[in-house]
């Protein structure tokens, strides 16, 4: 197991370096250190001297990748890329451009993100599986056709519509919950209900359709015919035999996104004013705060890779064929 983990982590390193390089390059193609300084200092009345000073303070006064004029003689390490990005690999995210400690921000902001993401995931799973199983139960009847059409319609509507529509209907017209904001403790619930609901509804279409395909694929397998030949009712066939098998691809498909839940949902959090990591990232992009964006992209890639490793491990746990295969 340990050897496996070490190997996977070694494989992950080049990917992380690549991702890092890429975000770095993209970001600096769009705006130069000069632009960043100007952005932070305000557009008007900025003297070149002030810009230089800002760059120096924030460590942007060096060349991007290669520094032949380096005083210390390290042409590669004495660059923006090296000083800003390489530290990430020891999870030292440094400070944001406004001077706040990024690591501290992340530990604070991940809780609201999780408060939305976890209920969305759980409620979502329940809803999608139920919906998909209902369609599979009524397969090739009008209920199934109608359900699939509904799923496609739900899928085709933009997520923004659900957010704005939901806020308008539930908060503005019916005054059931506040339109946006956040609180700590139990009071948070009234702020969370709507985003969770909308998060679930927003993915009903795509997920239910996908799960329905998984169910139908299982239903056509030979062991289901055996189960029917035993005289079991369609309900038992579906819940005992099909569901157990279908859960394998469904659950392992979820494991990969589990670590990503920390990252929060960019759009939902911004619209509902939830101070999570999603809105953190969006704000950072808006303010051209390279340090935060870089940190979040890096974190995202690390979490994704962890997700992939967890998926492999979870297969060995859920599936008896793999679990016992080696023994």
């Amino acid at each position, binding site marked *: *197991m340990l*050897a*496996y983990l070490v*190997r996977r982590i070694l494989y992950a390193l080049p990917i992380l370096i690549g991702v890092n390089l890429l975000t770095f390059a993209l970001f600096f193609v769009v705006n130069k250190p000069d632009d960043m300084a100007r952005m932070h200092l305000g557009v008007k009345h900025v003297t070149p001297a002030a810009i230089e000073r800002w760059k120096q303070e924030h460590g942007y006064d060096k060349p991007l990748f290669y520094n032949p004029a380096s005083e210390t003689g390290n042409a590669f390490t004495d660059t923006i890329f090296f000083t800003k990005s390489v530290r990430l690999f020891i999870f030292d995210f440094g400070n944001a451009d406004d001077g706040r400690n990024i690591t501290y921000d992340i530990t604070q902001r991940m809780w609201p993100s999780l408060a939305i993401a976890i209920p969305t995931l759980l409620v979502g799973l329940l809803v999608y599986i139920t919906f998909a199983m209902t369609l599979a139960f009524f397969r*090739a009847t009008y209920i199934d056709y109608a359900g699939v059409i509904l799923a496609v319609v739900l899928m085709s509507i933009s997520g923004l519509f659900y957010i704005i529509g939901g806020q308008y209907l539930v908060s503005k017209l019916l005054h059931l919950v506040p339109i946006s904001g956040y609180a700590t403790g139990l009071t948070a619930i009234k702020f969370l209900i709507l985003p969770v609901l909308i998060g679930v509804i927003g993915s009903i279409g795509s997920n239910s359709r996908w799960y329905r395909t998984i169910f139908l694929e299982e239903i*056509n*397998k*030979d*062991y289901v*015919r*055996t*189960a*029917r*030949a*035993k*005289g*079991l*009712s369609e309900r038992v066939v579906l819940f*005992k*035999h099909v569901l*157990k*098998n279908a859960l*394998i691809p469904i659950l392992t498909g979820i494991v990969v996104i589990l670590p990503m839940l920390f990252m929060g949902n960019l759009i939902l959090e911004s619209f509902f004013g939830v101070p999570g990591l999603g809105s953190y990232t969006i704000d950072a992009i808006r303010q051209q705060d390279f340090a935060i964006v870089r940190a979040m992209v890096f974190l995202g890639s690390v979490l994704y890779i962890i997700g992939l490793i967890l998926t*492999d491990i979870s297969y*060995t746990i859920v*599936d*008896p*064929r793999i679990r*016992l*295969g*080696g023994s």
Partner: protein
Amino acid sequence: MAEQTQILKVENLHTWFRGDGRIARAVDGVSFTINKGETFALLGESGCGKSVTSLSIMRLVPEPGGKIVQGRVNLHGQDLLQLPETQMRDVRGSRIAMIFQEPMTSLNPVLKIGEQIEETAVRHKTLKEGQTARQKAIELLNAVGLPDAQRRYSEYPHQLSGGMKQRVMIAIALAGDPELLIADEPTTALDVTIQSQVLQLLRELQGETHMAVMLITHDLGVVAEMADRVAVMYAGQIVEQADRETFFKAPKHPYSIKLFESLPNRTKRNQRLAVIQGSVPSLATEFKGCRFEPRCQFAIEDCKNNVPVWQSFDELGEETGVLCHRFDPRFESQFSEPVQKIFDAVAQSDDPVTTRGFKELLKVNELKVHFPIQKGLFKRTVGHVRAVDGVSIDIPQGKTLALVGESGCGKTTVGKGILQLISPTAGSVNLDNEELTNLAKHQMRQRRKDIQIIFQDPFSSMNPRMMVADIIEEGMVAQRVGGDKQKRQTRIDELLNQVGLSPEVKYRYPHEFSGGQRQRICIARALAVEPKLIICDEPTSALDVSVQAQILNLLKELQDKFGLAYLFITHNLSVVEYLAHNVAVMYLGRIVETGTVEEVLENPLHPYTKALLSAVPQVDIDSERKVIRLRGELPSPANPPVGCHFNPRCAKAWQECRNGYPSARSVSPTHSVRCYLYQEN
């Protein structure tokens, strides 16, 4: 006869499939009855509607698409087709149980086998007073002869071999105490020795429980061994029905007769096998006459225009009869000659196989192929599978060596090792005095011209996006044979003719052909580079008997014409009898006995060879055959038993057998055996 209680009476059953705007009449007017305690066999080639008939009885025809459109299925006088679905569920698994062809996929992979057995017992309340479901499951596992039932209870299907899974399927079926067991090709996916175990088990259980068995099969041997009565299906209809003796003594329908004639065996060694021309008609056609007419050599004008009606032989009961004009009094006069006579004339013998010079072509010496076993997520090598462990064989020019053995014994790996598709761990492969094992890649590529291979599954071995002409030409181009483009095209036409296809087919794609035609294309492809040796890896085991006969004829003909040598890898011993000159019997990576066909098949020495031969179901119902049933199954080649690998299953094993692997003892210049029972002479 009269006092037999009828359990099931199927009347005029029609089951259709809709799709692609066509209707396939998979079952088109089938009637039969099954009596208490008897075995009723439904025999027929692939696609004739056997499975759909059985699924219709269970009302499990796949929906949407499939539909029972007409007919009655009476179980003790009650029409199952009229029952509400909820009541039908009380019938399924309880009064009628079913087992399926593919034990590998028919069990739920994520449930313990014990749970899967219990489920039926609990559903149909067959638990005895004070018995827990678990006890019942274990009792059933014992009843189907699964050793160590306590432990097996909590295992998952993938931990069992194919034969064991089929036993579990039978246990599930028994759990509801059925009156009728429908077994759809229960042993087709199993090896002969395991098949004979499973058939024996079915027979024993039938004796104990008096249930009736409806046995669906394509194997005449299995029918001869098991059935009380037989029905032959062709293109969705039953064309002949009779009790076993009547049927095997004198099959009456032209199709049944042909089926017998196309079976290979030793008595037909020097003849061509009878073949049924053409192929089964599409079930989407509207038939105006007899369905068999295009392929029937007894057809008369009326056969084309009149649909035959059931002709029962009254003296044998209403059910016994055929669907053929030949037995219809209205047409009788036109068939003056007795059928059998015409038939004998047709199956005239060809010239015997010419014996060519005994020049050695292939010499394989002590070939070993070991695969590392890698374990866990980190792929550590924890041992070796000794798939081939010291195999020596010789094939002279123009001769056929049959390599026989159960699945998993390493036959295919020998073939791959000879072809250098896998580099052998040790040993030598010598073709025409050239050592192949130490050739460089490009040199080997040139030598591939001399050895070609054809596979079991002709479809997956061809690129579906290439036309037949390109498939055949590919090898010629690679080996630079056949001259320029023009000449190659002429050669392709010639090759297609040789394998019995018309040259027009060369612009068509593989999916447009039937299984047998595809295998012909593969043979043409192999012949294209003018090889000296063709390795045939189970070339006919995916084909129906009538098609198999065509391919065997073709292979024999090509051997006579071009002096080809074959390494014929198979588990089908009747094919061996028909085609091979020499036989090598393989068990767990080693050759245990080798000799000429006569020596090995008529005077088998090794206990394994004897068991293997005795396990093959015989079509001849009079033969007094004593089946030697092997205990257990093929052990893992990763961890073979010490001493003679066969000793745990060998009835003759004694002390010495565990001391070491017996060396080869020659009993004649050509016949040798590796067993301590024999002395060198």
